């Protein structure tokens, strides 16, 4: 439990890791847009996915992340992806049937492949962001990107603080969960047998102590923050400043190249 890392941050000292988190977030969005820009008409449009795949491979190589890790990132959604592809294959009635009176059409097959590639590429691209950027950096990046929302009175600082405190407490609460499970097990609780309802019910003696202790922690945290003069964003300074560098420019140009490539194919 101690070694748990949120998301899937893969610490490495690479060009991409050192890029500004804000730029990486924006470029990830640009990449996703690029994947959705791939034209959707005939089989030849599949070529549009080639630059996207190349982009993912190149970024993975530059960030020194084993490509197999990037591929594995689709594990969690693979069921969903295959399901939507199958639905397209079996239930898409448009287009011409592949054989006489068959229910599988060429259009269905085409759509299935298209959806499959699109989702897989989006997830792989997004995973590159979480592989190369620590959760703290992502939270800071989001705070900085949301700053303009202060104009419409959106509590940007508070939002970012809540996010970073949540991240900070994930390992602590996991430890706590581990301890509660051990304590309950030692008193004879059984979490592994019975049907799904029995198992779900067995979770109650874990969740309730966890909930109560979270409230206690929140209370103590509030006192500790008060004691350290916390008063919201008013008159607050910031120790860490994010700086753009040449790296971010290069990354941006490279992503622009991808979008141009996709638009031409």
């Amino acid at each position, binding site marked *: 439990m101690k070694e748990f890392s949120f998301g899937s941050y893969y610490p490495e000292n690479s060009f991409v890791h050192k890029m500004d988190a804000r730029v990486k977030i924006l470029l990830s969005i640009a990449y996703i847009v690029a994947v959705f820009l791939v034209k959707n008409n005939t089989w030849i449009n599949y070529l549009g996915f080639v630059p996207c795949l190349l982009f993912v491979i190149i970024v993975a190589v530059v960030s020194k992340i084993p490509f197999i890790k990037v591929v594995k990132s689709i594990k969690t959604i693979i069921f969903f992806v295959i399901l939507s592809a199958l639905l397209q294959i079996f239930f898409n009635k448009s287009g011409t049937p592949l054989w006489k009176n068959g229910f599988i059409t060429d259009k269905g097959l085409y759509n299935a492949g298209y959806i499959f590639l699109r989702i897989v590429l989006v997830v792989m691209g997004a995973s590159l962001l979480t592989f190369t950027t620590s959760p703290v950096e992502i939270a800071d990046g989001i705070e900085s990107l949301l700053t303009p929302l202060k104009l419409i009175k959106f509590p940007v600082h508070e939002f970012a603080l809540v996010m970073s405190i949540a991240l900070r407490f994930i390992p602590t609460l996991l430890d706590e969960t581990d301890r509660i499970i051990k304590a309950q097990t030692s008193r004879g609780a059984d979490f592994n047998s019975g049907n799904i309802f029995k198992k779900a019910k067995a979770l109650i003696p874990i969740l309730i102590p966890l909930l109560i202790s979270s409230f206690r922690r929140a209370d103590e945290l509030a006192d500790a*923050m008060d*004691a350290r003069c916390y008063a919201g964003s008013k008159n607050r*300074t910031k120790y860490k400043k994010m700086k753009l560098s040449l790296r971010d420019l290069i990354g941006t140009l490279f992503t622009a190249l991808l979008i141009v490539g996709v638009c031409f194919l």
Partner: protein
Amino acid sequence: MSIIEVKNVSYTYDKTKFAVKNVSFDVKEGEYVAIIGHNGSGKSTLAKLFNALFVPTNGEIIVDGISTSQKDKLFEIRKKVGVVFQNPDNGIVASIVEDDIAFGPENIGVKREEIGERIDFALKTVGMEKFRYSSPDRLSGGQKQRIAIAGVLALKPKVIVLDESTAMLDPKGRQEILNVVKKLNKEQGVTVIAITHYMDEVLNADKVYVLDEGEIALQGTPREIFKEGAKIKSIGLELPLASFIAEKLRQAGVPVKDGILDKEELKGAICELK
């Protein structure tokens, strides 16, 4: 000069029972004061009264000339009096050590460059420079608590209140914290108020207050306090081991002298007997 004056202070949570009853004492600048009591003696309530997390129901606490009931001076008081709580896990706000220490100075609007200097200073004082970029989750209990102390030091307080800051630590962690606190008091002249229920932690103190049911039951130097073995026991506290052995020896008819604090003194006293 008194840095904290506690004047006839009472505090109640629910208006029926007083957690702190009519307590008065002064803390002088640079003093090391220990407040000791068992669970429910009101000592943690007292800790929160020092930095205006609570305001006394009756009476008044004056910190460096400012009454804690002045709402507009809240942050001035909290800058002067830093509190280190029992569980460092619940006091650390950031996922990186230096970010956590920066939290206090950021709150009071210290400039960026100076925050950097304050982090250097705070980490050096608690001897944790090596861990500046680490995640607090990977540290031991004693190390985490040292980070929590550093987080308070970064506000440059005149007084540090330790609210049972060693209660959750192993003996090694406890010793680390006690050493840091002693150093702070002796070398930097920071006034220390250590709240605890471990008798052996009051040995470093200049003055000890024993709390019982919200009232001061005993006060004096550690030596004076430890002479009152019977009274301490009746309050539900334990003497440090050396004092306890000395008392048992006396009861068994061995004439060792009064007011023994640690094992060195006990050794000396036994050797004198011949």
